[in-house]
């Protein structure tokens, strides 16, 4: 685990480049900063300043090296790197409210944008006129879209919304791609077709985050007081687990059955999903080290008692993050087997976590050195290739 602080401002969103040497993030304002890792330090190399309002979403397409950003100014820009400078291209999203989240599709030929205008804008590049066009998904969205995630087949899109429902739509654009084959979610997939809609009958609050599994057959989402998984392979059955913690804000599938979620408790939690009805909490992923109480002098001790009527003078949380975690992102590995993931929070810090697939703190021998550890020096865990069998 390594923590890097990017200042005191909350980090609204972040995105990694392909080889994880650069990170784009926004410190709760209208500017995107791109930092590059030089040695052990993060150095700011670019500043993207086209937006006029707070940036709400950033996504970096690994293969085509384009960044898409969206903000409360109802605009989205696609940035391309030309001669070491990032040049923006305006996208006509045609929304009349703030954009809330944006995600490139797996093949990077289109992206989806959620907004407060109760619609999802799926944007694609039209070669003829050399501009980005958008198509809207409106029905049956009743409120702001809070999160989006693409299915690996590049067609289906999951959307979590503030109308307490999680939905899966088809975002098939006839002009740029071929007709998709049938999936576990359905066979007919014209644009805007609703494949799944799940409203929590108990009103578990807004759906803050959604995540498809690596195969695309399972969809996990977190709401104010619950985490749920819909399983298309088992007849779209939804398994629901109410949590005893503060609301979770972000969720990520890190393995075929493992899910990591994080939120206002400032700590990532691990859940496991083995089948319909079998969604369980496993453990907290942040081992709060018992902070060694620095020996306070007697003077300090009595001063505290006098001024604050407390014996200890600590306002720090035990967890690495000192404030809520807002977004989780995969750093190395893919959804089928995540090795490292990153979290950013309201405390302005970005932490990179290692995910131990075995679930135990055991050091295992590496079979192959084919893993991509990036440039982060980390002690202990070496990941194991899938040859050992599934787990």
């Amino acid at each position: 685990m390594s923590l890097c602080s990017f200042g005191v401002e909350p980090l609204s969103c972040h995105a990694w480049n392909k080889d994880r040497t650069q990170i784009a993030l926004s410190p709760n304002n209208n500017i995107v900063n791109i930092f590059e890792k030089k040695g052990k330090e993060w150095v700011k190399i670019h500043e993207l300043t086209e937006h006029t309002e707070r940036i709400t979403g950033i996504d970096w397409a690994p293969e085509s090296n384009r960044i898409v950003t969206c903000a409360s100014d109802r605009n989205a820009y696609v940035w391309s790197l030309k001669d070491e400078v990032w040049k923006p291209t305006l996208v006509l999203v045609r929304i009349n409210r703030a954009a809330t989240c944006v995600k490139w599709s797996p093949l990077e030929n289109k992206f989806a944008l959620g907004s407060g205008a109760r619609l999802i804008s799926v944007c694609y590049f039209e070669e003829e006129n050399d501009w980005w066009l958008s198509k809207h998904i409106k029905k049956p969205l009743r409120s702001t879209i809070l999160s989006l995630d693409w299915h690996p087949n590049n067609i289906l899109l999951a959307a979590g919304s503030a109308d307490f429902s999680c939905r899966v739509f088809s975002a098939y654009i006839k002009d740029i791609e071929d007709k998709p084959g049938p999936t576990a979610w359905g066979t007919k997939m014209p644009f805007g077709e609703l494949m799944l809609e799940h409203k929590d009958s108990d009103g578990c609050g807004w759906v803050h985050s959604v995540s498809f599994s690596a195969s695309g057959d399972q969809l996990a989402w977190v709401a104010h007081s619950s985490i749920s998984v819909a399983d298309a392979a088992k007849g779209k059955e939804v398994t629901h687990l109410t949590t005893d913690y503060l609301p979770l804000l972000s969720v990520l599938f890190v393995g075929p059955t493992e899910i990591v979620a994080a939120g206002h408790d400032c700590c990532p939690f691990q859940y496991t999903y083995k089948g319909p009805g079998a969604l369980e909490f496993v453990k907290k992923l942040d081992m709060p080290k018992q902070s060694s109480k620095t020996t306070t002098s007697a003077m300090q001790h009595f001063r505290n008692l006098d001024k604050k009527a407390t014996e200890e003078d600590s306002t720090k949380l035990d967890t690495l993050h000192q404030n809520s975690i807002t977004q989780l992102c995969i750093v190395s590995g893919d959804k089928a087997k995540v090795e490292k993931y990153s979290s950013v929070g309201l405390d302005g810090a970005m932490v990179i976590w290692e995910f131990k697939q075995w679930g135990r703190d055991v050091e295992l021998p590496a079979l192959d050195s084919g893993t991509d550890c990036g440039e982060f020096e980390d002690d202990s865990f070496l990941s194991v290739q899938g040859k050992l069998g599934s787990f």
Partner: protein
Amino acid sequence: MSKNTVSDRFRKVDVDEYDENKFVDEDDVGENQGGPDEAEVDGLLRQGNLNGALHAVLKNPPLNTKNHNAKERAELLVVRVLSSFKSSDIEKAVGSLDKADVDLLMKYIYRGFEKPSDNSSAVLLQWHEKALAVGGVGSIIRVLTTRKTV
């Protein structure tokens, strides 16, 4: 000026009613929404079976939004049952409830806070502490976000 600018009745118009994009909850009018059975609860209280009374009063919560009278009656009944427990028994009583009942108890507790009477708030605070220990902050989040209030 020819227009009458004195009247401010327009300020009392509920503009949300005229909003065509207004979000309407689908109300499932469930059966058994009449609230807990008063007679049953009374009987159990008189017998001194406090645990039984607690379980009985947590049955059939009036979640349907239209039934305000039933909600009032249910709330008074719940507060009565909760007040009749001794402080030392509260923890065990909460321990005997299952998760859904703990959430429901939290809803009633917060409802009770809204209209305090006599010693009710103190009693409710004790119950709140014990229910929180079992339900965690998640139960309070559910009280805040639920669309079906008790």
